């Protein structure tokens, strides 16, 4: 992340409300502020999706593919910023929920 610079805005949707967090990446330095405004990359999703992301229970790339996260702007920033989300909990199996149905 050291060579990346840019701003990413996370829009966390909770019913009719949306929280906005701005993350500014400047060559390895991360600043997080609670503000809206224009960013190089905007990522929007439900609160539950973000809760899963920060707990490592879902993967950001997969969430984008299935439309649980919507994104606009610089895709490279999107791929870079998903690195900050943690590892899954030990023994976590993302297919446990869906596997029964197949």
């Amino acid at each position: 992340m050291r060579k990346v610079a840019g701003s990413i805005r996370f829009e966390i949707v909770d019913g009719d409300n949306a929280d906005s967090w701005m993350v500014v990446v400047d060559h390895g330095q991360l600043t997080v502020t609670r503000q809206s405004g224009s960013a190089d990359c905007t990522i929007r999703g439900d609160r539950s999706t973000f809760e899963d992301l920060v707990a490592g229970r879902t993967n950001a790339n997969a969430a984008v593919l299935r439309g649980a996260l919507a994104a606009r702007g610089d895709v490279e920033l999107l791929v870079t910023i998903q690195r900050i989300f943690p590892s899954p909990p030990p023994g976590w199996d993302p297919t446990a929920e869906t596997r029964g149905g197949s």
Partner: protein
Amino acid sequence: MSELISILNGNTFVVSDEVGDVEASPTDPTGLFSFDTRFLSKWVLTVGGERLTSLSTDNLQYFEARFFLVPGVGSVYVNATMSVIRQRSVGNGFTEVLSILNHDDEAVELTVRIDADADFADLFEVKDALKKKGSYSKRVEGDGLHLAYERDTYHRTTAISSSQECTVDENGLTFTITIGPHETWKTELDVAIGVSAQHVEGQGRSLAEQARRPIPDMALGLSRWLEETPRLGCDWETLTRTYQRSLVDLAALRFSPLTAGRNSLPAAGLPWFMTMFGRDSIFTSLQVLPFSSELAATTLRQLGLRQGTRVDDFRDEDPGRILHEVRFGEMTAFEERPHSPYYGSADATQLYVILLDEYERWTGDTELVKEFEFEARAALHWIDSYADLQGNGYVSYERRNADTGLENQCWKDSWDSISFHDGKLPGFPRATCELQGYAYDAKMRAARLAREVWDDPEFATDLEKQAADLKRRFNQDFWVADGEYFALALDPDGRQVDALTSNIGHLLWSGIVDDSKAQAVVDHLMSDRLFSGWGIRTLAVGEARYNPIGYHNGTIWPFDSSFVAWGLRRYGYKDEAALVAAGILEASRFFDGRLPEAFGGYPKSMTKFPVQYPTACSPQAWSTGAPLLLLRTMLGLEPMGGHLIVDPALPANIGRLELLDIPGRWGRIDAFGRGRVDTSRVTDA
């Protein structure tokens, strides 16, 4: 089954029959695919209620095809007064210009119909015949038909429209037309794919819009690519034809991820592997470097951007690990498959460092090497930590995702590819020999970069010490003393997995083989057990699992042989390298210049022609790259300082060979050679 016609653009491709129709069964890879999803599974043309018969098909360019047809099926054409032309080109989705020519003196009234449907199958579902979990809908809208698939937040759509008026129903488009005498009727059909997601405000374009980004002029792109790659002049027609075919196929396999702008990297192969693979993209980039460095640069950037950062058992991800495979389909989206990305490869990480160095040696682009210093160091750290599963100083692998992860994480990735001489399969973790060779080479090359580019001589010295130690241990632990070759692997108890395989050729390429052992290794490679006359068998005759059509157990992989030839050359065995090159290139003659993924390991004396392995994957990137690497090997092209060394050792059936405008840090250089190596054993019919 009749011949399949494919056109492609990056990871969007259309596979149809020779009439241009698609009637996909759940398990065959025909239809319109994009982002690993089948957006069209039915596309059938009827004229006057009848199916059509193919007169001929022109694959004009890799991205467009033209089908010449007449109405009716069967050997006698009742009405040959009409012909039909479908001209199809792929972009985001595809367009098809449908022309019907009336050759008669009288006007004709006709009903023309296109039946269409989409199953939105994930390529993985096509491969494994799995059922869908979401719901379908169809909507008639004006002059168009909208097909949609929905599962929770996952939406995919196909929109079909026509430039000429038609009647639309849920199953297709109907044209009721009159064509005057000697006149032509035309319509342009457009099939557009859609990836929709919830709306998001902000700067730039949404991902859905980027997925539909405009396609640059493909014809122009191809002619530029051909202009910028070196020109080959040679009196061996097989070689010139194969070279041209390879260049065009490589252009076709270029894939531009959304994160890469207009730059592209090699996708692995049509139809199953039109995506980014760590190993395949790197091997192909290495093969192609003397001809074009663009693929290597993009590969390094894109793989670096997605380097592992977490410990994730489902994806077999570790910090520093270079990915194995990226997918975009529904099963990946719902985390039913781990490809977002999947990291289960035990060699891509070492190969990444190797490519970084080789790239700099050719291009002198130290900027990129500086930019990716962190990634290279993280990769080297992975080799010594996460990859050393047994703490014995060797890279080994054992999947942590036992359901959908890969059992064998080396290039021979089928389940039974790693075996003992007696056919038994070893337990896990497995430390295959070439992984150690690549690790050695990665350390040696990184040492050079540390000294010359990263300004860290201490790190360079450390790496060289580690490499020397690895080489010393490896030459003891893997050397099968009574057979005088290197074992395929060490099993979890440190026992030698003692099958004789082509992997020993990769060891030569890596430079890990002690000089005193090289001759014995070369003798094995060139023996009748491994060298068939066409190439090097993956597994030697006489091993329990040897089978001339066993996927990794006896077939010949042109890519594999090309790296073996490079290895022979590295240790000074020029004539042997020329022999292997001549064998593989001679084989290409039987495939119209397009080498398949693999062909049978039967001795040349037995079959007279190479027997294609029954697989649908063609063209395949690293087979396409093989003739290029063989050219480099035969010409002895080697960057040295700011110069290019040319030291040809060509098969004697080549009178003269010139490769003009070889790009690199020297600008452009020409290479010339005359044949002198006696390869009659493989080139005489």
